[in-house]
């Protein structure tokens, strides 16, 4: 008995020690960032390995927020929230509509369109970068958020797939009952499918939030006015090692920039894990 207990402890240690070690490695960059954001600026690179500030300088968050440019991070965060809100709403709503067509309506050409839709997931954005830029320039969309937001309203293939997988699992009996009552497609979609597919709508909403919050390439190309910078671009612009001196302040802002991501993760963890699992498995 005693032996069995010892064996169990050894086995548990054999698991927990490597697992904890890996946790430390995985989380270290983030802890380092937070620690550096609280250090006196001159200490950031002189006590680089220390994760405990000699004294906690909350002021970094104030100086970082004010930033060295003409605008404060209040502008950049507001811009990011605006972009994120519209991109997420547009992506989720349009993708759900498109997914419904594939899930329930037996229209002609469905198979071909679905193959093309999945094919666009494999298409590298780089191929579209330049022609889209030229196109949006002729539209007069440079230095607006339209090139970033409008394409999201045309459905995001990954979200279509995610919602489609979910909708396939919703029993058809409910639709049939509604058909007996003479209800049309739109009614069946809005009244039956949308309420039932809330989990997959939330999952795509979370991914939409992450992607548009962290989006870098599109604003880099289309936004050149500092007044319109989202947080990602502002951070990049202020991270030049040749001009940046207030590193603690910059790290304070990088820390703030990931807080929304972490909060959304904590709140919606369940949906996210499920979403990752279902799309990965049925792909």
């Amino acid at each position, binding site marked *: 008995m005693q032996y069995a207990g010892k064996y169990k402890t050894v086995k*548990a240690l054999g698991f*927990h020690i*490597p697992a904890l070690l*890996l*946790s430390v490695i*995985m*989380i270290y*960059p*983030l802890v*380092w*960032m937070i620690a550096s954001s609280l250090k006196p600026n001159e200490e950031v690179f002189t006590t*680089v*390995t220390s994760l405990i500030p000699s004294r906690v300088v909350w002021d970094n968050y104030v100086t970082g927020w004010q930033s060295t440019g003409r605008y404060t991070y209040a502008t950049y965060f507001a811009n990011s929230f605006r972009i994120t809100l519209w991109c997420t709403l547009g992506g989720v709503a*349009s993708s759900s509509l*498109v997914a*419904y*067509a*594939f899930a329930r*309506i*037996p*229209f*002609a050409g*469905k198979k071909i369109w679905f193959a093309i839709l999945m094919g*666009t997931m*494999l298409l*590298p*954005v*780089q*191929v579209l*970068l*330049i*022609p889209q830029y030229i*196109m949006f320039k002729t539209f007069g969309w440079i230095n607006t958020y339209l090139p970033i937001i409008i*394409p999201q309203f*045309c*459905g995001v293939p990954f979200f*279509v797939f995610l919602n489609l997988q979910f909708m396939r699992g919703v029993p058809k009996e409910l639709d049939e009952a509604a058909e007996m009552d003479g209800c*049309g*497609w739109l009614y069946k979609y809005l009244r039956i499918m949308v309420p039932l597919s809330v989990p997959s709508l939330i999952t795509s909403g979370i991914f939409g939030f992450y992607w548009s919050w*962290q989006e*870098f*390439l599109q604003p880099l*190309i289309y936004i050149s006015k500092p007044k319109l910078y989202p*947080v990602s671009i502002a951070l*990049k612009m202020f*991270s030049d090692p040749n001009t940046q001196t207030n*590193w603690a302040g910059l*790290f304070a802002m*990088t820390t703030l*920039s*990931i807080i929304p*991501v*972490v909060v959304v*993760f904590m709140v919606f*963890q369940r949906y996210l*894990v499920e979403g*990752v*699992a279902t799309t*990965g*498995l049925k792909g």
Partner: protein
Amino acid sequence: MTAVTNDIARSYRRKKLRINLAGYAFLAPWLIGFIVFTSVPMFYSLYLAFTKYDSLGSPEWIGAANFVNMFQDGVFWKSVGITFKYVFILVPLRLAAALGVALILTTNHKGIGFYRTVYYIPSLLGGSVAIAIIWSRLWGSDGAVNGLISAVTGSVFSYSWIGNPGTALYSLILLGCWHFGSSMLIFVSGIKQIPASYYEAAVLDGAGAWQRFRYVTFPALTPVIFFNLVMGIINAFKAFSEALIITDGGPMDSTMLFALYIYKQGFTYFKMGYACALSWVLLIIIGTFSTFVFRSSNYWVYYEA
């Protein structure tokens, strides 16, 4: 008699039309987007690939000159080589890490949920500018990595990992590996779906741990591995922002990933025709590899009958 069949045929056609109308109405957002934001730009890009265009004035037709020039462009070849190196080191390494950790996290221990969350968080923040900035400071000459090495060895170490052509690419590969969490989650749920009876049967046949992995777990996971492999390869070929923020393609073009090279040609040097030609080369490379992986799947991916 004919009147009746005509009526039936007509009502059938009408119903079919209604279904098609409804289908295309729901499909419309994507279809419009596909035409306006994907198809038209694709054709335009193909045309631009055969032109010289500096974004001012109008494109000038130069035939296949862009593609011919590529052969003489040293940076192009270097970039292709670096990108292959990046993809073929990063993707297997990250998959192996994801699978290995997933196997460990599906054993029966306390605190599994905690570890799963901790390992997944880096993937969430994966592409963010914040992480790229942190990474560039961690691996710089005065970064924390050198600080730790100095502390352990006792002598001052100030090698710039991202500032040296020999190691810069590896610091980007390591950043990619740091994001093994999302593949790991997919593997975890894949492993959990393998029926316990398979393992019981294997144990009865006297299979050890390795044999259980080799003959039960691995075959059952091949569809998941396949999916992760395809997405991993495609995403790695497209990798861009890390290289732009951390090293800006340097030092000495040692991290000039292909996607970054396209961006630079197009938006830094305004050689838009050349950049389009390059982007088609990228498309062909990705297409070739995807096809290759898809074809190979017949030989190693097991789908349950």
